[in-house]
């Protein structure tokens, strides 16, 4: 029985590892599109996300909002924080990126978002907000850049 439980845990671990891999890969692409280079200082207060990003060699998790290169808004708390904090430079770092359409819409600082809708992945960047941060995404991401929500 013990053995089966161990095998079950191993399989679960494998599945989890796969999901983690795909998430890291996806955000790796997004951060690259936003012009960030390793080591990327990431602020995210969501435990689940932190446990994922901990495994990336290019990302360093930071606990201070202002010391981060990018902030991932995954919760209402993070949304509030992003709204409140001015950062080092209001138009510069940290870049705010949302994980939900609602956060993107609610936070003027958020330059883009990645989320799932109707079973399809949705990646979008807001042109004006990118310009505010002087970010130019590579051409291959142009289709995801929109003028307004």
């Amino acid at each position, binding site marked *: 029985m013990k053995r089966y439980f161990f095998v079950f845990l191993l399989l679960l671990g494998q599945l989890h590892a796969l999901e983690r891999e795909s998430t890291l890969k996806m955000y790796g692409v997004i951060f690259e599109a936003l012009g960030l280079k390793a080591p990327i200082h990431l602020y995210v207060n969501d435990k689940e996300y932190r446990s994922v990003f901990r495994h990336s060699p290019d990302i360093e998790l930071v606990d201070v909002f202002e010391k981060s290169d990018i902030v991932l808004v995954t919760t209402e708390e993070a949304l509030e924080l992003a709204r409140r904090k001015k950062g080092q430079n209001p138009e510069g770092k940290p870049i705010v990126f949302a994980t939900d*359409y609602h956060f993107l819409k609610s936070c003027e600082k958020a330059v883009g978002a990645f989320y799932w809708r109707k*079973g*399809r992945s949705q990646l*979008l960047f807001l042109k004006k907000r990118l310009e505010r941060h002087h970010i130019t995404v590579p051409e291959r991401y142009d289709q995801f850049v929109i003028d307004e*929500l």
Partner: protein
Amino acid sequence: MKQPYFNRIIFGIIGLLILFVLYLQYAIIENTEKIKKDEIQKSEKYAQKIVQYLRAKTGGHIESALTNNPKLRDQLNDVLQAFLTENYQYIFVLKKDAKGHYRFLLDGSKEEAVEYQTIFFPQSSVFDRVYETQKTGIAKQQESTQKIWLSLLYPIVEDKQTQALLVVDLSEEYADYLNNLNSPLKVLVSLMQIFLVISMALLVLMAYRYYKFRQSVLNDTLTGAHTKLYLEEFFNRNRLDEYNAILIDIDEFKEINEKYGYDAGDAIIKEFVQAVLAELSLSAKLIRTAGTEFFIVVPKNEIEIGILTQKLFEILKEKKYLTGNDVASLTISMSAMVIPKGASSLQAIQRILDEKLLEVKSRGKNNFIILDLQSIDDLRYRDIDYIKEALEEKRVCCLYQPIVCTQTKQIIKYEALVRLIDKEDDKKLITPHHFLKVIKGTTQYIKMSKLVLEEAFSTLHAFPDIQVSINLDLDDLYSSDMMKLITKHLHKNREVANRLTFEILEYHEIQDYDKVALIFQQLKTYGSKIAIDDFGSGYANYYYLIHLDIDILKIDGNLIAQLHTSPRRTKIVLQSIQKLAKDFGYKLVAEFVCDEMIYEQIKELDIEYAQGYYLGEPKPIEAYEKFIKL
């Protein structure tokens, strides 16, 4: 049932099963696809009805109708929600904005319904195609993280303009449900596939084992030459008369084994085989027929048999074999022949080559012989089927050679000599040396003996004044079947049996004289006489005179022939035999009296009877009728 047919049937059944399983698999896939197609068609009709409803409610221009009417939006969202079943994951309506981005107009989701005009990236080019072509389309779901099987895209067109797109997402559970409709059959097919895979694996294993077994049976493990079984199988597939044959035997190999040991002997045989193979083409076959005997068949069109035989003989004779610190050499005896056209009996070929090889061996070994055309022509007489047919057709006759009184030259007896009559030419008679060995020990031999006995007794009945002698091998008398046959005929013809003489030939030394004496006694019960043939040579020796009750001694013809070459010494021997016979009271017959000179000397030696071509050739009894009447 023959093994190849059995194998074919097994493989045939397995093949049919594979085809059947493949067909089942194909049928299941086809059936599932058909069900899915039907369901998609149903969904299309479903979508069509939704679109009809939306058009009715919005007048076709859906966006303008909804923009300033949130109430209508809520109402229509509820309607879409009502259309949702467990088969449909999402139902929503999109439109393209001026920038070409899709935006939600309506969303029937129960939870987390999307706001009006929210941007949406469909992740499929089919959306654009449907929007442009205004034809229904199906987008397969590329991403696997969400539970969507496929998206049915239905354009809402008004004034030839695509106003919006109705998207009906069919759930993955729905696809699973459709796929599982045939699951019992799928399980069955899977089980059959497992069974077939295991069967195939077992068959492959069996085939491999069978192959290995055949290899061991068809090839000699020591030398790598083929075995007799291979030869038989080979000529089941190939025509015998397209090959030439050679028989090789290593002379006195026993001495090599004794001198160098069996391991060295084995090594020498292996090397010998390699040496032979080196001289043969790939299409020639080398067969180890016995310990030191090898049979070779070579395609006729490759090399003339005489050249090859000579070449092999020279090479093998010259070859040296290194055994430890010694160098050994071998001598070989060979017989070779061109297999005549139409020949089909491998055994007959082997038999004749064997006989010729024995001839070589008896002449001192270390030589070879290539069969002449006459010998080859006579081959067919050695074919057991040919002989069998002759006996069935009673193409058997006896020729009679007179035995005459030396002093008076009067015929006192005839020796009946069996002949087969040629199938094509009834004037051509076949002598026993062609066929006797072939049928010895078989039922055909008994059949032939019966015919000879019948003929001899018939002659005795037809000519009451003559005596006839017939030849019998002593081995025949050991056979209960033959003894039954002889005693039956003696009893049946008892009134003439006293005019019959059995000339006994012996090829082996008699082990049990008492038994032979008893047999002779049985033969003499009806008054028949016993003559010992070929006395003075081989096994016909003086023991006979001591232990057996015989009537006549027939002096070996070869001994008589010596009168030509060594008359003085031969006369001394013959005189002693004559004296012996006289003292024992036996009649004496000299064979091979081929000319007057010998006849005169026999007469001079006081040998009572003589037989030979000078005195009369073997002829049908009718040819001697005038002498009989005299």
